[in-house]
């Protein structure tokens, strides 16, 4: 599904990704871990198409097609979803109307009519129940005054509504208490299928107790330096990153 080869990227002439390789197939869950400043969020933003980053080398392919020249919305229309580490507040636009607009713009891009209001409401009800989101919450301005947990839950709610092919969860567990973590993880698990894939970016093993990865990668200094199965995450939790850094020397 997603194939990244020798990806090099920089911002303001500062190199952040230095030849990163990653392949994610449909039905898989990949976890990306690594110390602060390793380039984890940069990778997420570059896949989503954030323009501040300059891709200096390498390729990003989705379903065999190069997406590196596509606008962020076109990537979204092709099924990429990024759950933001820091979701942006948009005063004056309610959660419901934002997601309605997002869905209908995506449909428009595919040459489809707007989703009938009845279907939209039904879907909103279903997905908000899945994430234990209160009805009142949906009429509030997007992310405005939301707690950390509410913001993350709202991200996964949007993911549930948009049904992406590839979801990237950028530190979705940060700022969540254990109950919220369970709800969010449960939501993600329910959305998982053999046709889609998830990349989980996290610092902590605890999210991976709920969303069990098929692969764990260690991102360090802009490259994936080690890959393994779920047990690698446990090892990192126990031993930190220093041993990996030493292996590299």
């Amino acid at each position, binding site marked *: 599904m997603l194939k990244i080869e020798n990806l090099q990227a920089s911002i303001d002439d500062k190199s952040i990704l230095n030849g990163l390789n990653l392949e994610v197939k449909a039905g898989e869950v990949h976890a990306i871990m690594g110390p602060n400043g390793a380039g984890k969020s940069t990778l997420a933003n570059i896949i*989503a*198409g*954030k*323009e501040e980053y300059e891709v200096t080398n390498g390729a990003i392919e989705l379903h065999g097609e190069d997406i590196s020249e596509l*606008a*962020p*919305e076109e*990537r*979204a*229309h092709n099924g990429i*979803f*990024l759950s*933001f580490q820091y*979701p*942006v*507040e*948009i*005063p*004056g*636009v*309610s959660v419901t*109307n*934002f*997601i309605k*607009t*997002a*869905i209908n*713009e*995506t449909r428009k*891009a595919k040459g489809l009519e707007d989703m009938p209001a009845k279907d939209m409401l039904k879907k909103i009800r279903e997905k908000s129940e899945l994430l234990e989101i209160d009805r009142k919450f949906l009429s509030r301005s997007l992310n405005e005054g939301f707690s950390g947990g509410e913001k993350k839950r709202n991200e996964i709610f*949007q993911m549930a509504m*948009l049904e992406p092919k590839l979801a990237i969860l950028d530190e979705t567990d940060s700022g969540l208490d254990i109950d919220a973590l369970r709800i969010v993880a449960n939501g993600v698990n329910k959305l998982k299928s053999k046709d889609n894939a998830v990349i989980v970016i996290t610092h902590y093993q605890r999210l991976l107790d709920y969303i069990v990865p098929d692969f764990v990668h260690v991102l360090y200094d802009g490259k994936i330096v080690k890959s393994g199965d779920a047990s690698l995450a446990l090892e990192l939790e126990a031993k930190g990153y220093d041993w990996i850094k030493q292996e590299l020397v």
Partner: protein
Amino acid sequence: MELKEKIVSSYVAFENKVDMNSDIHEIRSKALQNFEDLGFPTKKLEAWKYTSLNAVLKEDYSLFPEKENTIELADVKKYFIDDIDAYKLVFIDGKYSSFLSETTHDTFDVCLMSSALAKPKYKAVIENYFNKIAKQDNLTSLNTAFANEGAYIYIPKNVEVEKPIQILNFTTGSEAAILLQPRNLIVVEQNAHVQIIERHQSLTSHPALTNAVTEIFAAKDATVDLYKIQNDATNASLIDNTYIEQKSNSVVSVHTFSFGGNITRNNLNFYQRGEHIDSILKGITIIEGKQHVDHHTLVHHIEPNCESHQDYKGIYDERATAVFNGKVVVDKEAQKTNAYQQNNNILISDKATINAKPQLEIFADDVKCSHGCTIGQLDDAALFYMQQRGIPRKEGKALLMYAFANTVLESVKIPEVKQRITKLIAEKLGVDIGFDL
């Protein structure tokens, strides 16, 4: 001949035509003298520092076109809020169009200024209210000197007017250039209630300049809602001088939607003469090209325990220029005043300009006066977030701008007006989204 001379020298002919013996002859003559002394405003005046009329005044305007022009309803239907039942006062090139209008003298008067000025029936009201709060400044004096046609609305005590009143001023282009000076008087007696929608619309690319004066009197417990829709052709300029006097417990709101035109200057003045008054001033300005919109507001808190709420939002693209000058005066006697002013601006282009100036003159010591003024750009992080969710950049921008302006729309009481404004905003921003936020 310069426009000023042309205007002054046309006065005698005008007076002969309207009625030399009219009671307001003296008011007009004095106003003409005033204008003759003061002339048109120049940038040397503080209040006109950022708005130049020079280019506009160079046109060779027809002052009193004689021709009665007609237009087909089908051609102008879109300028009405046509999905509501409403009284209508329609003027074509400054002349009343009985065909397009719907007036009444039933329990209240919605009719013509010219007849109110001429007929004995209206004499008492004219004597009590005409030119009583309009300033004696240059442009208002110019209007007063030639005051003859416009809307006359009188709502007696305890009458709630159920249908809104629409005032439309069309210019057809039958003249190479036209100067219009509508004069409106709106008197709303105790506990009466009225909603008014006002629009100036040029149907041509010929230059038009409108120098309008509206006086509104809201008696005790009266409610007046005025909606000004300014979305005119690029060669049409408007100077709107509106004066509002409120008595105790009255609530008056003015919403000004400025989306088009060449130069638009709004002089909106509120005078609070009573207690527990609420004055609401709101505006959305969205302009581009070389358009210019200038909002000069004044709220004069004269007596204690009153409130005023101002909220002006502006979005400027390309080389558009704008001014917001919000003056709040709180007299020494006006204790417990609660005056709120908010002015937020977004500059889309590097070449666009906003000159924003909150101006508070507070002479009382127990008051709550707040003001906030911001000038910013669209939030790139928010745009990326929206794009990531599949909303294209252009639509995302539009959504952000609409959300930004939405606080002003929330207080619009006529749903059809709100819908129309929403549609105009979508058109203006070139997007096809419903904004049913």
